[in-house]
């Protein structure tokens, strides 16, 4: 009986119903989109790191610690045979890491100089831009942020000073051959990339490398000497920790969004219900009990949430899908690493089942609560007051 009356009320109220449903649907949409964008940002950071830096994993020289530049001096050796075979097969590429100092325009800047195989295609870096520059002493590839910080442009030259394997300082002229736009600021900030062979010659470390990055899908080689295999899980552990540490922020953002949504829904529902004080009084005069009045409005709230879910799928679904495929242009370039995490220029939301289900349940629950509470309050009023429309919030 109540369900039948609730359906009649919803269909009969037309504009009021659609306003309530729209507000709820908008809440569904906003929460799902913004939370998905947040998830997408974190997921993207991980994917970009894998795509541009990690690939399938790496073999590290046993002395190598990327967080301790002092180790770079000792962290170099010729490749173990199995690893070298991978490199020769094009399934891996070596990188030689050392500290250096550059002097762009007379200023001094400590950097990490990395020698990389220009012809590699395992990670998404424009290393091929380092090839075919026989006329240049040291061809250099840098990132956009590094270029901005050092005020360098393509073709600019500057002095590079380094310490070679013989503990001798040497210096020569580097020339910027390409400035790469990368979302991974770890390849950009404080880094200069030069051809591997050039680096090996400069550092007097012929045939040597610090680490070797291998392609996705390869298993770890047994014959790798004392080089340490580092899988993707290990290499992104810092990022995972960062994401995990960010969970409370994500939860806070979800709650804030939920509060905004709840306020919108509460306003629309409470306004709707309190405007219907006289109607409630009439229903009570006609013989509807208080519990049935509360039940009626709660069912109406439930149906409201159901219609909002359908409206979200029909009207906002295509928009969510479009944004999920094409991303959202952020309008701000965070590639300088100022955010402390990789942030893409186009943010692609990630819609997880957990997010959609949780949001649906939570928003529906809010709708039910904001339908139940005010109607319970009105139903507790004297019917004579309700009939006169004497309803106050």
């Amino acid at each position, binding site marked *: 009986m109540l369900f039948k009356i609730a359906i009649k009320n919803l269909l009969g109220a037309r504009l009021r119903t659609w306003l309530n449903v729209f507000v709820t649907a908008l809440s569904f949409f906003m929460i799902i989109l913004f939370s998905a964008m947040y998830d997408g940002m974190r997921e993207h950071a991980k994917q970009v790191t894998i795509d541009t830096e990690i690939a399938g994993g790496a073999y590290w020289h046993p002395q190598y610690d990327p967080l301790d530049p002092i180790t770079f001096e000792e962290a170099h050796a010729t490749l173990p045979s199995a690893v070298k075979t991978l490199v020769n097969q094009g399934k891996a590429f070596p990188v030689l890491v050392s500290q250096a100092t550059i002097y762009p325009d007379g200023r001094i800047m400590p950097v990490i100089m990395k020698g990389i195989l220009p012809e590699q295609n395992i990670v998404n870096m424009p290393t091929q831009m380092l090839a075919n520059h026989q006329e240049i002493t040291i061809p250099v590839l840098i990132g956009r942020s590094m270029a901005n910080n050092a005020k360098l442009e393509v073709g600019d030259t500057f002095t590079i000073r380094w310490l070679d394997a013989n503990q001798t300082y040497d210096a020569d002229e580097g020339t910027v051959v390409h400035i790469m736009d990368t979302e991974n600021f770890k390849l950009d900030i404080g880094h200069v990339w030069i051809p591997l062979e050039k680096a090996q010659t400069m550092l007097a470390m012929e045939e040597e490398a610090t680490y070797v990055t291998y392609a996705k899908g390869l298993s770890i080689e047994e014959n790798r000497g004392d080089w340490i295999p580092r899988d993707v899980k290990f290499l992104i552990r810092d990022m995972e920790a960062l994401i995990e540490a960010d969970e409370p922020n994500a939860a806070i953002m979800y709650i804030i969004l939920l509060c905004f949504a709840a306020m919108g829904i509460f306003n629309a529902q409470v306004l709707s219900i309190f405007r219907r004080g006289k109607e409630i009084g*009439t229903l009570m005069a006609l*013989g509807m009990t208080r519990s049935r009045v509360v039940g009626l409005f709660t069912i109406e709230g439930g149906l409201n949430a159901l219609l909002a879910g359908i409206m979200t799928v029909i009207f906002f679904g295509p928009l969510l899908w479009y944004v999920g495929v094409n991303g959202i242009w952020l309008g701000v370039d965070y590639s300088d690493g100022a955010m402390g995490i990789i942030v893409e220029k186009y943010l692609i939301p990630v819609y997880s089942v957990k997010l959609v289900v949780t949001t649906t349940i939570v928003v529906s629950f809010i709708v039910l609560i904001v339908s139940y509470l005010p109607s319970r309050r009105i139903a507790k009023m004297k*019917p004579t007051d309700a009939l006169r429309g004497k309803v106050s919030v």
Partner: protein
Amino acid sequence: MSKSSVVQIENLLKNFPVGGDFFTALKDVNLTLTTGEFTGLVGPSGSGKTTLLNIIGGLDSPSEGHVNVLGQSLNNASHGERARLRCEHMGFIFQSYNLLPVYTVSENVELPLILNKVDSKDRRKRVAQAIEWVGLSDKINSRPAMLSGGECQRTAIARAIVHQPALVLADEPTANLDAENSHHIMKIMLQLNQELSTSFIFATHDEKIMTYLRRIIHLDDGQITEDEKIDNPKART
């Protein structure tokens, strides 16, 4: 209480709290109404007509005294029991109609039958009959906003009598109507009173209504000042 009595009230007192004090709306009210009566509670504004009507309808509670309606004491009745009594045996007509604006005429009239869990086939038949009684068959799918004041009140009457209650309570049913519509409405209710033996109690100070009443209970300052029985109402059709 005699077998044919519909309402029996003894020593009714009704106070309303006002600030730290009480306002006495009804005092020493004793009243018995029998089946099929067409009774008016008449008096100036503030005399207690609506309060008495609300107490008879179980919408309000007495402060003191005994109120027995349709064989059920309202003194100790719960909200649910009162609601059930109203639902099954009473009809209400309000001054401002109180039609549900989002419902059509037929849906408004159908509501008491839905609350009484009447099956849909029987509902349709009884709604059509009630709407025919009040002469609104051509407005069956109209919403209240599309109706005149007289048509709205006829819809409210149809809603009040569709489940054939024993008692209909009407609070100033003609206050918002012109003379022609007021007479039309009263004739309809009088006809229903005669055909269905439904008891009607009006709260009114409208002179036009009084000519139709067979019993007039005068109220003044919360007390019954005169109980007038009229054997031959002048305007009866």
